[in-house]
C-alpha cells in the first residue's frame, strides 16, 4: 500500500478517503478478484515468518537452531494475538496524527464489508496487516540470537509491536502525519520504512543493550546449515510477492508492476552481490547469494509500485553496495548484530526509500508520485524525513522498552548457558537428536544416576 492511496491506481475508490471531495455515490462492494489476490497475498506474507525462521536458523549454530527458529515462530502467536486485540486498532482506527484509537480493539465492528478505501473485506485487510506486524517483529531476532533469553525476547517483541510498530504504521498508513497529504507525503509502497527501517533500528538497540555473544570475535561462528539459509531465502522471495504485490490491495496494474519489480530487483542484486564476492574473494558464496536476495527484496519494498522494471533493476543493483560493505565492516567491529539485520534491512530499506525518491515515475506509480529523475527533487527530502523520523522514534522507544524488560527478566544467557546452547537452556530440546543416552523418566521413579537433581544449567 502507499502513503497516498490515490496514487495506487484505485482512483474511484480512493476518493472515499480523500477528504475534500467525498464521493457520496460510491457504495463499497467487495470485489471477488481483488479478494482472491489478497487472500493469496495474506497467506504468502504469513509464510514469510517460517521462511525467516529457516533463513535465520540456518545461519545459527546447531545448538541454537531451535531457539533461533522459535524466535520467528513465536511472533505468529504473541504478536498475532496482540495485533488482533489492540495493535490493529492503534494502527488503523481513527485517532490523532500520532496514534489510532481503541475503537477497533478486540476487533469490534470489523466485519466483512469492504474496508473504506479498498474493495476487500475488512477482516481480510486486518489479517493482511497482521502478517506485516508479525514478520516485522520477527525480523528483530536476527540481531540477538544465540544469547538473548527467550522470555525477555517474547515480552520485548510483543510490547514492541504495540508501542513501536502500531504507531509508526499509523503515521504512514493509518492516517498519521507521515502519509496524510496525498501528493506531498513520503512514498512507501510496501513498508520500507514501517517494516524494515523500523525493525532494523530496534534490532540495533537490542544488539547493543543485550550485548555480544561470549564467543563473538574470538571464534569463527559459522552457519550450521547453508541449504536451509537458501531454502529460507527462496521462500522469503516467494512470500514477498504477497508483501509487495499485495500492497496494491487489488489485482490490478499496480499489483502487476509491484510484482514484476519484486522479481527483477533481487535478480539484479544477486548479480551485483555475486560479482562483488568474486572480485573480493574469488568465490561466489551461497550465504552471499541468500543475503543478496533479501537485500534486493528489502530495497525494492518501498519502491515496488512506483517505478519501471528497469528502474527496479537499477535499485536492486545499487542496493547491493551499501549492504555488502556494511556487512564486511560490521564483522570487524565489536557490534554483534549477529545476522546483520541493520546492514540488510536497515541500510537496504534506507537505500530503497531514498531511491524511491529518485526513480519514482508517474507513468507507473500514478499521478503525483514522481522522484528526482522525473523532475521532483523535493521528494528525496520527504523520503529522508520519513526515514529519520522512523529511525529516531524506533531507536528511542525500543531502547526504553528493552531497558524496562531488562529490569524484570534476564535479558542474556550466561556464558555457561551459551556454551550449552539455548535450545537446551530455553526449550529443553535438541534440534537434531538420535536419542542416544536419553533415558525415559517415568513419573514416580527415583532418579537412577549420580546426578541427584535436574540440571541447573537449564533452569530459568
Amino acid at each position, binding site marked *: 500500500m502507499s502513503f497516498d492511496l490515490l496514487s495506487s491506481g484505485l482512483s474511484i475508490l480512493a476518493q472515499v478517503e480523500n477528504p475534500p471531495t467525498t464521493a457520496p455515490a460510491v457504495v463499497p462492494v467487495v470485489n471477488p478478484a481483488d479478494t482472491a489476490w489478497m487472500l493469496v497475498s495474506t497467506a504468502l506474507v504469513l509464510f514469510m515468518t517460517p521462511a525467516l525462521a529457516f533463513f535465520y536458523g540456518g545461519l545459527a549454530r546447531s545448538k541454537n537452531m531451535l531457539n533461533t527458529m522459535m524466535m520467528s515462530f513465536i511472533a505468529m502467536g504473541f504478536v498475532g494475538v496482540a495485533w488482533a486485540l489492540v495493535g490493529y486498532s492503534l494502527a488503523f482506527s481513527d485517532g490523532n496524527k500520532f496514534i489510532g484509537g481503541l475503537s477497533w480493539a478486540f476487533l469490534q465492528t470489523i466485519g466483512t464489508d469492504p474496508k473504506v478505501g479498498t474493495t476487500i473485506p475488512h477482516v481480510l485487510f486486518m489479517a493482511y496487516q497482521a502478517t506485516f506486524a508479525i514478520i516485522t517483529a520477527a525480523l528483530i531476532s536476527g540481531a540477538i540470537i544465540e544469547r538473548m533469553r527467550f522470555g525477555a525476547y517474547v515480552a520485548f517483541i510483543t510490547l514492541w509491536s504495540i508501542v513501536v510498530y502500531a504507531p509508526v504504521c499509523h503515521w504512514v498508513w493509518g492516517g498519521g502525519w507521515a502519509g496524510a497529504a496525498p501528493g506531498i507525503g513520503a512514498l512507501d509502497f510496501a513498508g520500507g520504512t514501517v517494516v524494515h527501517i523500523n525493525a532494523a533500528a530496534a534490532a540495533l538497540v537490542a544488539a547493543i543493550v543485550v550485548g555480544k555473544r561470549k564467543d563473538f570475535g574470538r*571464534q569463527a561462528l559459522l552457519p550450521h546449515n547453508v541449504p536451509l539459509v537458501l531454502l529460507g531465502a527462496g521462500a522469503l522471495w516467494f512470500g514477498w510477492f504477497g508483501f509487495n504485490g499485495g500492497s496494491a490491495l487489488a489485482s490490478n496494474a499496480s499489483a502487476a508492476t509491484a510484482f514484476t519489480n519484486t522479481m527483477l530487483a533481487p535478480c539484479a542484486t544477486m548479480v551485483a552481490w555475486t560479482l562483488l564476492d568474486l572480485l573480493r574473494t574469488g568465490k561466489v558464496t551461497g550465504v552471499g547469494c541468500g543475503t543478496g536476495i533479501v537485500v534486493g527484496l528489502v530495497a525494492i519494498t518501498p519502491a515496488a509500485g512506483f517505478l519501471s522494471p528497469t528502474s527496479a533493476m537499477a535499485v536492486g543493483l545499487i542496493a547491493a553496495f551499501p549492504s555488502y560493505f556494511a556487512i564486511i565492516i560490521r564483522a570487524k567491529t565489536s557490534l554483534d548484530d549477529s545476522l546483520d539485520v541493520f546492514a540488510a534491512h536497515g541500510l537496504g530499506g534506507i537505500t530503497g526509500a531514498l531511491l524511491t525518491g529518485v526513480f519514482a515515475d508517474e507513468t507507473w506509480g500514478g499521478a503525483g508520485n514522481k522522484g528526482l529523475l522525473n523532475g521532483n527533487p523535493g521528494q528525496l527530502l520527504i523520503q529522508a524525513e520519513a526515514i529519520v523520523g522512523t529511525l529516531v522514534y524506533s531507536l528511542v522507544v525500543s531502547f526504553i522498552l528493552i531497558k524496562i524488560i531488562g529490569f524484570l527478566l534476564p535479558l542474556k544467557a550466561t556464558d555457561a548457558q551459551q556454551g550449552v546452547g539455548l535450545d537446551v537452556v530455553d526449550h*529443553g*530440546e535438541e534440534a537434531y537428536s538420535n536419542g542416544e*543416552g*536419553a*533415558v525415559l523418566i517415568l513419573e514416580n521413579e527415583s532418579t537412577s544416576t549420580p546426578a541427584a537433581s535436574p*540440571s*541447573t544449567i537449564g533452569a530459568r
Partner: protein
Amino acid sequence: MKLIVAIIRPDKLNDVLKSLYKAEVRGVSVSHVRGHGGETENVETYRGTTVKMELQEKIRIEIGVSDHFVDPTVQSILSAAKTGEVGDGKIFVIPVESVYRIRTSEKDTAAVTPVAVKA
C-alpha cells in the same frame, strides 16, 4: 611412541588446537563423542515424554607423538582445556608399537615428524 587420547569440551577445541600448535604438535585427529561422567544431566521434554540426557557432547582428540613429546603435549592440553567445572574430560596415554606415514611408508619417529609443505 605414544597415542594421546583426550576427551574435552567442544567449546575448548579451538583453544586446545592453538595451545598444541604452540607446543609444536602438528598432527591431530579430532572426532565427536558423547560422554558421561560426573556431570549433571539435562532434562528434555518432547510432548508427553520427559527424558534425561545422560550423554553430553564432547570432543575426542587423538595425537600420535614420540616419547619425549608426551609431556609437553599433555601439559598443553591440560592447561588449555581446563575450566575447573565438572565435565572437563580426561587424557589417556596409550603405548604404541609402531607408526607409519601412509604417504611415504616411513615408520615410527620419522612418521610423526611434520614435514614442510610446499604450497
